[in-house]
């Protein structure tokens, strides 16, 4: 069932490539705007890079949250999911994982190319990718809670950002912190370990919270 839902969501993403590409291009454009507006000041750009890339990743992943449940909600598939004899948390976990595969992973793979604009070293780019790969699934999992809570509300898109962005802050701090630590020449293990810990906690708690919110939203 878990794999069915991932397979279905990936198939839907392939059929609607524009949704995936808009998120990715949003990320590319936001990250590229900063070097263009600031000019070729290498030191300044290098200091800014981790923060800018991470903030852009947060916004891009949030941008796609609206679609996570809304289309299933509108066509009635979500009702069927609630009536599945399988645990709803497992289905939600599958959906969040599929969301990460189509938004988080492309962002993480695109980041090193964009990082070149900021004159980041190869080492720093590598840490950036690792931190994004650890951090973006947390964004999808936490975002799913917000998306489930605001399901069917008018103006839910703005509300979801108000709900979810504060919860993203720890991920942002340690994600960007890992890259900064690497550039400063100190160990970044602690940052990555904490990101990993966030991931484990949200893997356990977020699907359960999302399932509960979905049941409330559909009542």
């Amino acid at each position, binding site marked *: *069932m878990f794999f*069915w*839902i991932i397979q*279905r969501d990936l*198939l*839907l993403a392939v*059929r*609607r490539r524009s949704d995936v590409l808009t998120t990715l291009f949003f990320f590319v454009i936001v990250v590229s705007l900063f070097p263009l507006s600031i000019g070729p000041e290498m030191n300044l750009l290098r200091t800014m890079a981790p923060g800018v890339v991470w903030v852009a990743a947060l916004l891009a992943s949030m941008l796609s949250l609206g679609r996570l449940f809304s*289309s299933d909600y*509108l*066509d*009635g*598939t979500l*009702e*069927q*999911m*609630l*009536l*599945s*004899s*399988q*645990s709803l948390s497992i289905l939600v976990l599958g959906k969040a994982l599929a969301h990460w595969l189509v938004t988080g992973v492309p962002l993480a793979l695109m980041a090193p190319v964009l990082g070149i604009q900021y004159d980041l070293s190869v080492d720093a780019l590598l840490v950036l990718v690792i931190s994004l790969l650890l951090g973006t699934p947390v964004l999808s999992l936490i975002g799913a809670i917000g998306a489930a809570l605001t399901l069917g509300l008018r103006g839910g898109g703005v509300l979801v950002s108000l709900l979810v962005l504060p919860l993203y802050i720890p991920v942002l701090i340690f994600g960007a912190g890992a890259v900064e630590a690497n550039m400063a020449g100190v160990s970044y293990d602690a940052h990555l370990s904490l990101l990993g810990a966030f991931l484990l906690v949200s893997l356990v708690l977020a699907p359960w919270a999302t399932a509960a919110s979905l049941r409330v939203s*559909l*009542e």
Partner: protein
Amino acid sequence: MLQGINLACVRGDRRLFKAVNFTLEAGGLMQVHGPNGSGKTSLLRMLCGLSSPALGEIIWCGTSIHDLKGEYFANLTYIGHLSGTKDDLTVLENLRVSSALAGERVSEAQARDALAHMGLNGREFLPAKVLSQGQRRRVALARLLVCKTKLWILDEPLAALDVIAVQLIQELLERHLAEKGLVVMTTHQAIDVAAASTVHLRLL
């Protein structure tokens, strides 16, 4: 088997219905009648466990459905107003995915048979977005052919269907009832389904 005791439904500060009681035995059909806005869909969603009644209890085989949860869902097929068809998937994929969600693995051949039976022969590989309302309905109802559940809860299954499709659904319901299945449905159209016992529930 399915029993409703003193059910009441409140939406906002309006009470849609109260003191609804019924008992449905194996092989029984319950038709819910009532004008628009009388709470038919709310009652059916309650029977599915999608929402909980303001008062009263729903009993399946002697146990409250609130305690059964997944075990009850495994016995249930609900087809609501929203057909649950995905515009971007083909007809065949839609049927296989929705059956998989209901916990029934359907092979491609089985799915094609079911679709052919519903008169969708030759349209298996069309994306659902090009279908008409009636055809979408047929895709949703094709699930009844592949899912072997005991209780069917159908909200306006005949909406948008043509005469031939209504005939098909009637036969399908009769076969299910003859096999000791249970059906709860609402409809505004006249349909004459032969059943071991028929309960007519009227909401005001």
